[in-house]
């Protein structure tokens, strides 16, 4: 059942065929070399499961290894916040799955084969084809939306399952499933803020990145649903450093809260300047799901007490074992994408078990049909990390997320609704 996306290439024109074949061979070699040039965290391709380990596996086989091809982001600007934590989380989950014997009945073990494609879409597509040619039809991808958009038609064409930490795009019958839901937590955050007294909100939005506009819209929807309003919005550029004019203008509105939909460093800088300007003393500072540690790193004590939603954070009740194990293995606290990577691998394992129980062959196609059911299953609630996680049939995950703040030492700390209310009311 080898799937080669070039298999439907017309083969007429016999006279030209040898030349075409040579050209195709040369092209394939060049493309393969390009893909191979990327840093790999996995073994050599020759040691991979190959086609017999991937798509050829059948339910009746015993002790089979299924290769999961990971289009990993291990270098570049997205590596540290997204790519590496995602990979580490997935790697840890596969170790846990193996150790727990969860798939022992199926005889299946997974081998995660990561190839670093950074955020280079061409490298990603080349590597996807290379994996596919080796019979792999189950893929992981970290947080890169352009990459996911490029893989989407290829996944459908080859009936390959693609589980990703990038943002979701609804598509009926999709073979791409996004495990990231940043919208629901943003809407919920807006609702919560309005409920706790922040009715007049001003916002600063990074206009260079559409994502921040999407977050701001989701936040606004939530806020307005509970009677609040964004009374003034200022759009800034990610390269801006001086915000005194913007802040003077926003302070004039006498807001209850300032919502910052910007990069973490920019948000910290704005908070610092808000503190310096002194016009926002009793005003709540609110942020987006994109906020990370650099908010505190740049903003310092100005960031303490700021409120923001997150998809997940370390230190949550019930995740202590994961936190400890992750820190022990990788020497740092798990990031949000560590949890998403971990959850992704477990989702694959649970879906695999369900497919096996149905007596079907474990393939990208059979797993694709099972992912939504697996996502809400009791097994996922037991083994997964993201609370109240569901997966829609159109490939988009939904979960409420959590609320967080920066503690005095800068640690990102999850807070309950009572603490939220206390901080929101000053």
């Amino acid at each position, binding site marked *: 059942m080898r799937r080669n996306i070039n298999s439907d290439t017309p083969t007429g024109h016999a006279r030209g065929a040898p030349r075409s074949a040579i050209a195709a061979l040369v092209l394939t070699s060049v493309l393969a070399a390009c893909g191979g040039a990327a840093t790999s965290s996995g073994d050599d391709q020759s040691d991979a499961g190959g086609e017999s380990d991937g798509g050829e596996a059948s339910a009746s086989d015993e002790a089979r290894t299924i290769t999961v091809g990971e289009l990993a982001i291990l270098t570049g600007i997205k590596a540290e916040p997204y790519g590496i934590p995602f990979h580490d989380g997935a790697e840890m989950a596969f170790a846990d799955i193996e150790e727990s014997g969860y798939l022992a009945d199926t005889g299946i073990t997974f081998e995660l084969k990561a190839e670093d494609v950074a955020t280079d879409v061409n490298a990603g597509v080349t590597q996807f084809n290379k994996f596919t040619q080796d019979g792999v039809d189950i893929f992981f991808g970290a947080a890169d939306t352009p990459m996911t958009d490029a893989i989407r038609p290829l996944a459908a064409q080859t009936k390959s399952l693609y589980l990703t930490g990038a943002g979701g795009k609804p598509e009926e019958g999709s073979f791409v499933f996004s495990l990231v839901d940043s919208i629901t937590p943003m809407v919920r955050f807006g609702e919560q803020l309005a409920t706790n007294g922040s009715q007049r909100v001003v916002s600063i939005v990074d206009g260079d990145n559409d994502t921040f506009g999407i977050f701001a819209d989701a936040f606004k929807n939530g806020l307005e649903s509970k009677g609040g309003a964004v009374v003034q919005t200022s759009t800034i550029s990610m390269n801006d450093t*001086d915000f005194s004019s913007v802040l*003077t*203008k926003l302070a004039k509105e006498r807001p209850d809260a300032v919502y910052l939909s910007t990069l973490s460093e920019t948000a*910290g800088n704005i908070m610092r300047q808000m503190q310096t*300007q002194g*016009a926002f003393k009793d005003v709540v500072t609110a942020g987006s799901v994109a906020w990370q540690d650099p908010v505190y790193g*740049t903003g310092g004590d100005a960031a303490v007490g700021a409120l923001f939603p997150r998809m997940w954070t370390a230190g949550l009740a019930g995740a202590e074992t994961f936190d400890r194990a992750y820190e022990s293995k990788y020497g740092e606290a798990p990031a949000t994408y560590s949890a998403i990577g971990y959850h992704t691998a477990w989702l694959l394992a649970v879906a695999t078990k369900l497919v096996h129980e149905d007596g079907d062959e474990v393939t990208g196609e059979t797993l694709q049909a099972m992912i939504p059911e697996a996502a809400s299953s009791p097994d996922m609630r037991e083994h997964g990390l993201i609370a109240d996680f569901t997966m829609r049939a159109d490939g988009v995950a939904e979960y409420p997320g959590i609320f967080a703040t920066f503690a005095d030492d800068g640690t990102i700390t999850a807070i309950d609704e009572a603490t939220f209310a206390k901080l929101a009311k000053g």
Partner: protein
Amino acid sequence: MDFFLQQVTNGVALGSVFALYALGFSLVLANLGTFHVGHAGVFTWGAVFVWFLTDRHGLPLAVAFPLVVALSGLLNVGCYFVALRHLERRRNNAMAGFISSLGVGIVLAGLALEALDGEAQRLPFSAFPVETWDLGPIRLSSIQLLIIGTAIASFLLLRWLVNRTQFGREVQSVAYDRETSTMLGVNVDRVSALVFFVSGALGGVGAVLVAVAYNVIDSRLGEVYLLVAITAVVVGGFGNVRGAFLGGLSIGVVSSMTTGYVTSSYRDVVVFGVLMLVLVIRPTGLFTSPATAERA
């Protein structure tokens, strides 16, 4: 009215940074006739130096500041000797110098990225005490006061240097006619090296102020201000110390007013629209005069 005055204050503070950048840039432009865009790299390194000295070595800002000014000046002198001096006798030396300077800027930015561990850094929060005063309708912070005061002092010092000293006369002479100056006994290389030192030092001053005020030091810091500084030079008039200074201030105020009264989204559109308008009405710049006695 309060809002207007506050935005003017904000604009003057921001414009002071533009002005310091433009002053240094303008000096070299007058001296060599070259767009020394590598100045952006020197500016970035000014911020790297102050971060290195205060955060990594724990020096007080008051001690680090003059060191940064000297180091930035020396770095710019290095740029002159490495990238520009040997191109002076080429027929198309302005373009060659521009490209060479661009290369230096790219190299310096790359090295800065390494020096900053690939991340945006900041000064220690305690590096400069932050106070805020209400002066009638205006709220002024100690950082704004530092920026405006330092920019004015730098401008006055530079004017005195250019107009009242032997060095200044030599600078003006070289700017007017390099070959004739050489025949008259002016050591052109020494003058150019000193011009680059002063230019780099001004960049260092601006970089320290930006690092203190805006709290982010990254390898692209100089690039962020480059285009605005060039605009300030064009608006003020090429090679004109007073023009570059007032051009920088003007752009800061226009930028601030656009944010305050229109929208921050159109800030750059308005700033560069003003630039085009100035070029149409007064192609030589707003602050040039027939006898540009202070032409550097």
